[in-house]
């Protein structure tokens, strides 16, 4: 059910409702029994970010925004938006990530009452749904007022709104503030926190800041990986570690040689055990797409393959959870946190004192030139290795720009990253198709099936998949030259030079 409210007000605590408001009489319905509620959101707070709040009470899901209340039957916690029954709540959430599950932010008790302002003939002029939310934890009790005006009674609505807001209304709270009010202990999560870098900050400090920030992001995902809520915890964990690794390898000379080698090894050790688990997640997330590639007659073979993937994923997950919960892991992470904690000192390198802005320009310009140089050599006939080389350098360029983003005007970087991302998309697909072919071939070699019939079915399906992936790879390969030409426009060239080229470079 959709109820468009004339306004939703969030109040701290309880306003006393008098018997008369202006010329009208206030009638408050007898409040019903308290019922438990849970507030749900995805780990990345994608619901809060669109100014909404999702509440589950018994078998009802209610989605609040600053102007409407949507309800539909069903439960949400632990489920994906796509799994919800069709209804207005689900429809309003279609912008959230399909890969994120709905998790409990906090719980408490809820009480509903209705307030109506009526005239001397008993006619209602304005209404309000009053919802009192009492959180279980240390947060404060919040009263949600959903005002409902009736056509032709605007004055009464304004009077009720003013009355409930009180004589000296503080800054109006919005739906997005609900979490902080109810559950102040809830830690907000940002998968892509921007590190503040001052232009005159030295490269060494900038590197430490970025690593410290992303180390914290990685840690925020550990519990979700262990609980296996959804695939995105591991994904974010890996992205954070990869960012750190790129700082270590791309911020040349920020750390001493021995320190760099040591850090590279330590972060590689963290990344390595996640690789297979992530690959399996990617296969499983793309399951439907794989089925779409093949005719139905070949689906049985795919089912056999995915059954093996599911079992393998279960094993890999268990193995990784064990690692995350091990003392060695905890010690390794704590040591890294201590090393990058403010005031602590990894060993600086020769470029450590280089001012960040100048340092960033040098690295980005150098990498950009390298990308252009490699691309210039690529024709239809160039061997695939060179295309891979281009892909890797584009990736490094992208990482550098993103890592140093706080130093440059946001809008101008965005304009540069867009064509770069398109080029990377092409190169990325080219690589994915090639890696997947090899992986499937390898998979077939290492997973003999007992029944000959099954063996044949799976081999046929995988063979067909490889053929299709090979074709797709060729298609992507054919696009590379054009993709780079699109990226390499005079405007982009000028912009790279103007942003990153230093005098004398």
């Amino acid at each position, binding site marked *: 059910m959709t109820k468009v409210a004339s306004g939703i007000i969030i109040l701290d605590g309880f306003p006393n409702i008098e018997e008369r408001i202006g010329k009208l009489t206030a009638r408050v319905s007898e409040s019903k029994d308290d019922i438990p509620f849970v507030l749900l959101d995805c780990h990345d707070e994608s619901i809060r970010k669109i100014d909404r709040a999702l509440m589950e009470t018994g078998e009802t899901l209610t989605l609040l925004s600053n102007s409407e209340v949507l309800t539909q039957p069903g439960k949400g916690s632990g489920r994906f938006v796509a799994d919800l029954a069709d209804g207005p709540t689900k429809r309003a959430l279609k912008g959230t990530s399909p890969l994120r599950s709905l998790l409990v932010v906090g719980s408490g008790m809820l009480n509903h009452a209705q307030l109506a302002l009526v*005239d001397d003939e008993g006619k*209602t002029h304005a209404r309000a749904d009053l919802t009192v939310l009492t959180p279980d934890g240390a947060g404060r009790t919040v009263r949600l007022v959903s005002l409902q*005006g009736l*056509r*032709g009674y605007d004055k009464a609505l304004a009077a009720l709104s003013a009355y409930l807001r009180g004589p000296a209304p503080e800054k109006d709270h919005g739906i997005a503030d609900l979490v902080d009010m109810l559950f102040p202990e809830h830690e907000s999560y940002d998968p892509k926190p921007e590190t503040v870098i001052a232009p005159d900050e030295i490269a060494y400090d900038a590197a430490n800041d970025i690593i410290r920030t992303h180390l914290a992001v990685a840690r925020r995902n550990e519990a979700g990986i262990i609980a296996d809520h959804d695939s995105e915890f591991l994904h974010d964990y890996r992205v954070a570690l990869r960012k750190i690794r790129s700082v270590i390898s791309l911020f040349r000379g920020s750390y001493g040689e021995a320190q760099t080698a040591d850090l590279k090894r330590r972060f590689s050790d963290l990344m390595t055990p996640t690789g297979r688990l992530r690959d399996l997640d990617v296969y499983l997330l793309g399951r439907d797409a794989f089925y779409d590639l093949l005719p139905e007659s070949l689906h049985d073979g795919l089912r056999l393959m995915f059954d093996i993937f599911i079992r393998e994923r279960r094993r890999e997950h268990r193995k990784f959870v064990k690692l995350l919960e091990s003392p060695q892991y905890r010690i390794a992470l704590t040591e890294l946190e201590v090393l990058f904690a403010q005031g602590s000192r990894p060993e600086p390198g020769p470029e450590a004192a280089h001012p960040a802005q100048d340092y960033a320009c040098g690295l980005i310009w150098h990498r950009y030139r390298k990308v252009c140089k490699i691309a210039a050599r690529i024709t239809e006939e160039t061997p695939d290795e060179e295309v891979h080389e281009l892909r890797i350098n584009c990736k490094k360029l992208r990482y550098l720009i993103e890592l140093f983003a706080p130093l440059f005007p946001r809008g101008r970087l965005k304009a540069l990253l867009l064509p770069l991302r398109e080029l990377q998309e092409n190169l990325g697909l080219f690589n994915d198709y090639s890696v997947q072919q090899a992986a499937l071939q390898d998979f077939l070699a290492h997973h003999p099936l007992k029944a000959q019939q099954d063996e044949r079915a799976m081999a046929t399906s995988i063979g067909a998949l490889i053929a299709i992936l090979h074709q797709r790879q060729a298609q992507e390969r054919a696009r590379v030259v054009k993709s780079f030409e699109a990226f390499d426009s005079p405007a982009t060239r000028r912009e790279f030079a103007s942003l990153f080229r230093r005098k004398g470079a």
Partner: protein
Amino acid sequence: MKIIACYSNKGGVGKTATAVNLAHAFAQSGARVLLCDLDPQGASGFYFRVKPSKKLLDEAFFKDTERFAKAIRGSDFDNLDILPANMSFRDFDVFLSRMKHNRERLGRSLKSVAGDYDIVLLDCPPNISMLAENVFEAADHIVVPVIPTTLSERTFEQLLDFLDDHAQADKQKVVAFFSMVQKQKTLHAETMARMRETYPDRFLAVEVPFSTDIERMGTHRAPVATFAQTRPAAKAYDELQRELRARMEGTTDD
């Protein structure tokens, strides 16, 4: 937007009760409804506790679309708004007689709020006047409650004759149903049988009973379904709504 007029050239047949309960039933089924009270006595408004409009006076109803829209009041029920009448409505014929296009004026006024509603119900005063001709012109369906008595049979004939002779309105718009039916009365049963035979397809199947529940609307000041939902009268109005809806869906949209 579809316009349904609750009309009878005879008084006391249950027009207002029909308009009020039908409006409520349509709104409950999810349609956005405006109940427009054209009767200066303002009974429809009374049942919904809406006070007479103070500013929609004299010719404003037909001439001032802004004022017309502003006079609409939300009822206490979802999807249901009321345009209350006032005593100046008794002079509608005088104003209309002075205006150009005076058979289309009502339709024009309603058009100004067409976007807000799926259904507009008109509660009409019981006479054949210029206002009534406006109603015949504007309405998509003219719902006529008929008490199954000899006198009512005669007025129903008169209405159909009038529509034939004078109004530009299509007689096909007329949908009748039996109102205030007392089944135990032989006269009622006989009249209904005869009229159903004389006017095939004109009468809906539903029969709204004579009921104290309907009379009690005056003390409750609310549609019958809100305080006697399981009783025969409330069920009959709901059935009336369903039958009408089926007819409306049978006709093509303009």
